């Protein structure tokens, strides 16, 4: 199994290198390499599917440091994320083969290389079984994705975005590195086996946990380390943003789970509280900011922050239950977490690809100039609708299932032995509910403004639907979203090995047969998407047929009525700003709002309002200023006068001599 996985990663790298054979040929890369990459993706998913129920298999490669060859291991957790990677990569690669065109800055062969190295490095991150291999794969992932983000490096803002991304990624990587240092705590044994065996004292364990949270959080984009995310995702080509948001963020989640649940065999309940708090903060922050965005890819990027926040909340809940030794509930929370990872991977990549098609058709990212595309590009619109319903967490699609499981996990919290946590839980549940509702709001805004209504720009009349490759990719991802929504019991059973491995329990035993999902026991809670969808469809059909049967199906086309307003133009619809206004009003304190409103006597009234991220002003700019000050400080050392330089060494000599005495 592990060999197969490694070979698949190798195949990806090989495909990438093939890109260098004909670096300037789009046809070769697009028609040969990317489809092949997609095939490898399917293969990876298959391998992982088998490995999920298989015994963990390990392999030591003759690479790496002398005393530390590359250890690779494929256990249930890795297999799960590997399956996620493969499944998404398949769809995205097929899409990419139709998508990547001549207008990028870097030659296609180079992009192809970076793309496949990116995929391979993510796969290697998931199978790495020692700190060095992990870090190598991790940073390779960062570097290759950086080159992908800046592949169109002619624009200054894209370069800036890439820079911000790689900087935060690198600092995060250093902190992960230090975390591993704390985990091996001077034994010099960097393999995960060694770290598992090691029993760290509480202080070191907590240090490691905090470092891991910070390091992986920087990659996952948790508040306040999220600032790179809304910059990098719009900058990158859409397939890349899809991969980054769908899979790369999940590798960060994987790392968190691996370190905390696996390597740190040291359950401390209040770690869970930290993770829960950070996660909910990120979730609310992300969705609130998504609501006021005017760039469709930025909007999706912020919603990624939200989803990562929800995942982190589930993770925190897992830690909480685990810390209090409640195995079944921990298993439930962990299932919800992983399930949401899976869902987010698919619907978010679907949506990013859809925005990519829109971007190609209209070369327009700003919501203010889109609209009515459901007529021009129906295929994209309908597949995007699936993604939208899913991400809004509405039944019967997949987004709802994971949120349902998460809320179930919350429902069973209040018999915790810790009073304050009991108080905290209802609030947390409320935050989750609020987030879910807001995501519905955001998605109505997204879909309604991009695809519905009248075109806000004359140029949109020329918009064309996506090509066959892109359609295939979208269809695949959409289909998976539906399947994940309709057959949750399958997924839950697939997750059982993982939950058993880390919590000792599985929840699929009570899963109430093939029709119902009942995580704890049927009379506590149960949900059956199939029945749900079946009855709903039945009712809808009956209603429709009845209406047709008893009455008529006549319809006449006319101008919209709109309370009889005579002149209706596209500009009378809500803009993105307008649609976000209520959220801006309700959650005012969250934003840093600047703008001017026109006075009644303005000749040419102009309205401008920007809602900025406070963290820039709270965290990042101060840090930059501090560094600036330090620089000014050390600069004094290098003033150019040779006597002064001599004095430095003289003083050093004297001071040392004095202390030797």
């Amino acid at each position: 199994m592990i060999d197969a996985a490694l070979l698949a990663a190798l195949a990806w790298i090989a495909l990438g290198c093939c890109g260098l054979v004909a670096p300037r040929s789009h046809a070769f890369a697009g028609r040969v390499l990317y489809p092949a990459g997609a095939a490898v993706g399917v293969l990876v998913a298959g391998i992982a599917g088998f490995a999920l129920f298989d015994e963990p298999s390990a392999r030591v490669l003759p690479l790496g440091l002398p005393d530390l060859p590359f250890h690779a291991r494929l256990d249930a957790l890795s297999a799960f994320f590997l399956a996620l990677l493969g499944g998404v990569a398949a769809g995205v690669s097929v899409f990419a083969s139709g998508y990547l065109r001549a207008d990028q800055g870097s030659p296609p062969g180079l992009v192809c290389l970076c793309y496949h190295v990116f995929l391979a490095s993510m796969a290697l991150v998931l199978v790495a079984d020692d700190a060095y291999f992990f870090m190598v794969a991790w940073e390779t992932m960062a570097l290759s994705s950086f080159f992908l983000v800046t592949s169109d490096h002619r624009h200054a803002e894209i370069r800036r975005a890439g820079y911000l991304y790689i900087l935060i990624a690198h600092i995060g990587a250093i902190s992960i590195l230090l975390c591993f240092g704390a985990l091996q705590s001077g034994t010099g044994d960097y393999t995960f086996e060694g770290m598992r065996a090691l029993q760290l004292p509480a202080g070191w364990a907590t240090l490691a946990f905090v470092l891991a949270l910070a390091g992986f959080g920087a990659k996952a984009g948790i508040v306040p380390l999220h600032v790179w995310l809304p910059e990098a995702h719009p900058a990158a080509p859409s397939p890349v943003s899809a991969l980054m948001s769908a899979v790369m963020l999940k590798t960060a989640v994987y790392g968190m789970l691996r370190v905390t649940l696996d390597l740190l065999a040291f359950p401390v309940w209040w770690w869970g509280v930290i993770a829960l708090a950070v996660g909910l903060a990120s979730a609310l922050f992300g969705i609130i900011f998504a609501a006021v965005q005017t760039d469709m890819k930025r909007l999706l990027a912020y919603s990624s922050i939200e989803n990562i926040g929800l995942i982190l909340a589930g993770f925190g809940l897992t830690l909480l239950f685990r810390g209090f030794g409640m195995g079944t509930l921990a298993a439930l929370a962990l299932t919800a977490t992983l399930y949401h990872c899976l869902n987010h991977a698919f619907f978010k990549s679907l949506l990013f690809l859809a925005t990519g098609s829109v971007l190609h058709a209209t070369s327009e990212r700003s919501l203010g100039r889109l609209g009515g595309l459901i007529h021009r590009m129906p295929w994209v619109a309908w597949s995007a609708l699936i993604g939208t319903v899913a991400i809004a967490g509405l039944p019967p699609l997949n987004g709802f299932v994971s949120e349902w499981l998460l809320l179930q996990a919350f429902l069973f919290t209040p018999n915790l032995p810790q009073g304050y946590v009991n108080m905290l839980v209802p609030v947390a549940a409320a935050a989750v509910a609020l987030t879910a509702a807001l995501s519905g709001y955001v998605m109505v805004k997204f879909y309604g403004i991009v695809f519905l209504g009248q075109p806000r720009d004359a140029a949109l009349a020329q918009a064309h639907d996506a090509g066959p490759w892109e359609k295939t990719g979208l269809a695949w991802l959409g289909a998976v979203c539906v399947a994940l929504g309709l057959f949750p019991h399958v997924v839950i059973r697939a997750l059982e090995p993982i939950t058993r491995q880390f919590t000792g329990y599985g929840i699929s035993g009570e899963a109430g047969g093939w029709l119902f999902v009942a995580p704890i026991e049927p009379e506590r809670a149960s949900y059956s998407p199939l029945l749900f969808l079946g009855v709903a469809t039945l009712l809808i059909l009956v209603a429709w047929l009845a209406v047709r049967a008893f009455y008529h199906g006549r319809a006449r086309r006319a101008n919209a009525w709109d309370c009889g307003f005579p002149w209706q133009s596209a500009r009378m619809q809500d803009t993105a700003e307008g649609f976000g206004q209520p959220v801006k009003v309700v959650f005012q304190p969250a934003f840093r709002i600047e703008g001017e409103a026109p006075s009644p006597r303005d000749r040419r009234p102009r309205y401008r309002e920007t809602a900025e991220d406070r963290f820039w002003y709270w965290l990042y700019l101060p840090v930059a200023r501090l560094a600036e000050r330090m620089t000014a400080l050390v600069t004094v050392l290098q003033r150019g006068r040779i006597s002064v330089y001599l004095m430095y060494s003289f003083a050093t000599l004297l001071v040392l001599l004095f202390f030797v005495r």
Partner: protein
Amino acid sequence: MNLAGAAAQFTELMLAVLLAPLLTGWVNQCRAWLQNKSAPGLLQPYRVLAKLFQKEVVLAHNASPLFRAAPYLVFGCLALAAAIVPSLSTGLPLNAAADAIALVGLLALARFFIALAGMDVGTAFGTLGARREMMVGFLAEPALLMVLFTASLISHSSSLSTIVEALGHREFVIYPSMAFAGVAFTMVSLAENARIPVDNPATHLELTMIHEAMVLEYSGRHLAMVEWAASLKLFVYSCMGLALFFPFGIAQGGDWPGIVLALPVLLAKLAAGGAALALIEMVSAKMRIFRAPEFLGTAFLLAVLAMLVHVLLEG
């Protein structure tokens, strides 16, 4: 699921679908009485529906298939919701298919599509209505969820029929948390059903309307479906409220005699509830649209408070 259960389920569903307009009519009549106007008659909603079904549909030029599908979708969702809520009896087949959370999700789904339909034609009022509807939604939905959570914390289950059985068929206990939840639920259902003080179903006043603005472009059978769905929504919420806060006389496990007994009880409760709703609408004034968030925020906080109270006093 046995055949009897299926039959009971079907009865409950059809009852809801058929009685929903009647409830709307009843509420309007009560309101008219309280305003001592002459009431339009109890069956007026049915007449309206019939008329609308007869009329031909006028579609805006750029109305998409989504626009045409939405009314049926919404109707279907709410009918399903009506089937899920244990109005006559608990333990029916569909109760297991969806619990409280799924019910909220179902209502959200309906809202989602009607809002999209509102934006589809791309008129000023349509988008305005959709925006306001979603604004109401993103505060009302979690509040409703929290109310249901309070109930499910009490009954250690999120499945509605278990909740009802726990609340209704055990020995009588006073739950202070349910008081908070009740207030919150009332506020939420006022907002959700486009009632005063949040919205006014009777007017088409541009600046204040929410639901009406959203469905402004609908006509003919589509409008009929939308209206019917709206009254279904009112019916569902009423039944939900009654099941949560007055869970008496609801049959168990779909046994026929129980259902036969439960029917008049339900009707009585609905009549009382409708009257109460009309009374509330009478005594309160329509508030500015930007007060709505505060109103709903209060409801949300009350619901959360209800959970806290439960954890504190009853946990």
